[in-house]
């Protein structure tokens, strides 16, 4: 393609986005747009897949049959979300196989938040409530994004996340209304998840590499700091309404702006955890590898039955 053609295509592409139209598979798009989306959707997919693990661990120990069924359904949703997102990334030319290989090799990034341990039952409630609220704030923003298949996947996922938040909140309420020990357990979980959850929205705008262009092409429609603030404004009153504390003495409403002030998390910790050096990164990847190996016989049996093993996917979603 000549430089002139490239310029015209780019102008057309940006005009389409400015009009609020979606980009669909097969449309011309700048390589950087494609590349950024594959990176982002891939990381998002991996986060859903790895995100099954911290809570999945509690399925055998859930208190009561109803909470056990609920947790199984929630973890199954995360697996489903991962598959939806891998499909969305595939419409841009990535393959599910190479994305999974990257994850299993420990080369792929995914959300920082799933690399922290879940030592108590309260963690399951607090993940559903805090972490999934932060996820929904982010994903509702992404549902407004310019790439059709990703935006469609986000709408479906947000619908299911509403259930995740409610079941988490319900579990925390039970503890908050319970014995002093149960209350302390809920508070301890809020204390441990607060900063990792604030980090989920990504590095602050002033050091985020991708924000400016991502906003212009509507890969994102709000910046990391905007998403983080929206989450804080939403969750702080909920935490306090349950009689629990936000583990930040600076956290107070700012009358001038109408938003809550809060202490920023340690960005070096975010960097370390995302780059593989969090408390549970090695454990998570090892668990994914084991799941992949343990499931191999099923894939092989299905492939043998149908007489086909590998074939690449055309672009549709």
């Amino acid at each position: 393609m000549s430089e002139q053609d490239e310029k015209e295509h780019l102008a057309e592409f940006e005009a389409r986005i400015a009009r609020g139209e979606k980009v669909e598979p097969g449309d011309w798009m700048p390589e950087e747009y494609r590349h950024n989306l594959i990176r982002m959707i891939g990381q998002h997919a991996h986060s859903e897949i790895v995100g099954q693990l911290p809570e999945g661990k509690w399925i055998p120990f859930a208190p009561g049959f109803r909470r056990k069924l609920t947790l199984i359904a929630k973890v199954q949703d995360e697996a489903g979300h991962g598959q939806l997102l891998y499909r969305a990334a595939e419409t841009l030319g990535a393959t599910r196989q190479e994305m999974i290989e990257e994850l299993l090799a420990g080369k792929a990034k995914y959300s920082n938040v799933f690399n922290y341990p879940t030592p108590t039952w309260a963690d399951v409630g607090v993940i559903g409530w805090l972490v999934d609220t932060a996820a929904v704030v982010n994903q509702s923003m992404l549902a407004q994004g310019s790439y059709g298949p990703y935006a469609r996947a986000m709408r479906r996922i947000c619908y299911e996340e509403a259930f995740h938040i409610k079941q988490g909140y319900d579990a925390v309420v039970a503890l908050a209304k319970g014995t002093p020990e149960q209350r302390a357990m809920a508070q301890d979980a809020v204390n441990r998840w607060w900063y990792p959850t604030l980090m989920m929205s990504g590095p602050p705008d002033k050091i985020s590499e991708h924000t400016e262009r991502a906003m212009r092409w509507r890969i994102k429609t709000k910046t990391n700091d905007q998403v983080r603030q929206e989450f804080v404004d939403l969750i702080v009153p909920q935490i306090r309404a349950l009689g629990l504390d936000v583990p930040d003495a600076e956290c107070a409403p700012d009358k001038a702006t109408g938003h809550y002030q809060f202490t920023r998390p340690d960005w070096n910790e975010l960097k370390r955890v995302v780059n593989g050096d969090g408390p549970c990164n090695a454990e998570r990847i090892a668990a994914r590898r084991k799941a992949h190996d343990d499931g191999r016989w099923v894939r092989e049996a299905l492939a043998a039955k149908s007489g086909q093993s590998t074939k690449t996917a055309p672009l549709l979603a």
Partner: protein
Amino acid sequence: MTDTQWETYEVFHQSKRGEAHEHVGSVHAPDAQVALQYARDQFARRLKCVSIWVVRTSDITATDYQDESFFSQSTDKSYRDPKTFGAPDHL
């Protein structure tokens, strides 16, 4: 590792008899029967569903978004539109 990239099937979902089958997404599967099971697990976990179709993605022939002329109407077709007539609404 060459064991995960099965071909894809587009999934169409009917929420109740009388409604149209609606495209809801796609799944990887080794054959159409397994695709139906994956489609059920992926797209009918909660909402009511009475029928699912799966179609091999590669069997779908589609128009190209770039080829807008395919849909352009060269002459005025407004006479096909009920709103362009002066007849009363109750007709």
